[in-house]
């Protein structure tokens, strides 16, 4: 399966999606002008991945900041993961960033089955 490897910029996150190496990670800042356009390839990738996923999919979110348009797309990603068996999320937040911790908790409440683990750094 193709590998997605995007370098982070000042307004878009670093994204690695690599099925063979079992790397699934979004990190950094997400405030693109057009969040739907930016995340479209990620959602397409997950649709393909869903047809033949690994036994385990541990998806990491290590976001420093995201805007509200991105939050909608992050929920779309989580909703896709919610339908992949063996998928779980590790939600990283900076130890003094209560807002990011709370954001992760809220996302976890918005999906059905997807397990969340919270880790501070």
């Amino acid at each position, binding site marked *: 399966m193709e590998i997605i490897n995007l370098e982070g910029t*000042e*307004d878009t996150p670093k994204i690695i999606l690599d099925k063979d190496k079992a790397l699934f990670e979004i990190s950094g800042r997400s*405030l*693109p*002008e*057009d*969040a*739907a*356009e930016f995340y479209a390839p990620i959602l397409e990738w997950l649709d393909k991945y869903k047809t033949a996923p690994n036994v385990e999919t541990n998806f990491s979110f290590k976001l420093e*900041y995201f*805007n*509200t*348009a991105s*939050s*909608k797309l992050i*929920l779309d990603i989580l909703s896709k993961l919610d339908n992949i068996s063996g998928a779980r999320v590790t939600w990283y937040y*900076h130890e*003094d*960033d*209560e*807002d990011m911790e709370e954001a992760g908790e*809220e996302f976890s*409440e*918005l999906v059905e089955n997807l397990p969340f683990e919270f880790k501070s750094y």
Partner: protein
Amino acid sequence: MKYIYDLHRIMLRQNLILVYEGEFTQEITKSVLAMAERNMDAFGEEASIKRKVFNVMVECLQNICKHAESYDTESYGKNSAIFMIGKHNNEYIITSGNAVPKDRVKDLSARLAHINSLDKEGLKELYKEIIKNGELSAKGGAGLGFIDMARKSGQKLRYDFEPINDALSFFSLRTTISRTNS
């Protein structure tokens, strides 16, 4: 040339650390954010407060990029708007002003009044409801910007509308971020 001195004095009096007036684009948003970040870094602002200010700035600036209306007169240029940050002893004040079509004023007022009527839990519920059921608008907005600003601020949003002409009103919005840790 006295207006330069006057403007300078107004900025000092209002403790404005950054004022931008003109066209708003994503590139300009990034520059304004970088300037404000450097400014806050320079006097060692606390990370948690810096993040909240950054957060409110992004929503505010991207709202302007998406929704500020161009004035009809050419001299005003494209989606001309104003954005300011004031730094006081106890708080940051993030202010924006831009033209909106008159027929949007009623809806905007109602939405802001509703947001201001909610407490912390109410805002959280509204946020979750919209993120779950809302669609991105044609302009790419999630309809969550004001709610997010109110949540990060923890205080009421202040707003005002001034008539510009028959078609447009000037929409001012003011968000406060406390510098004393809650």
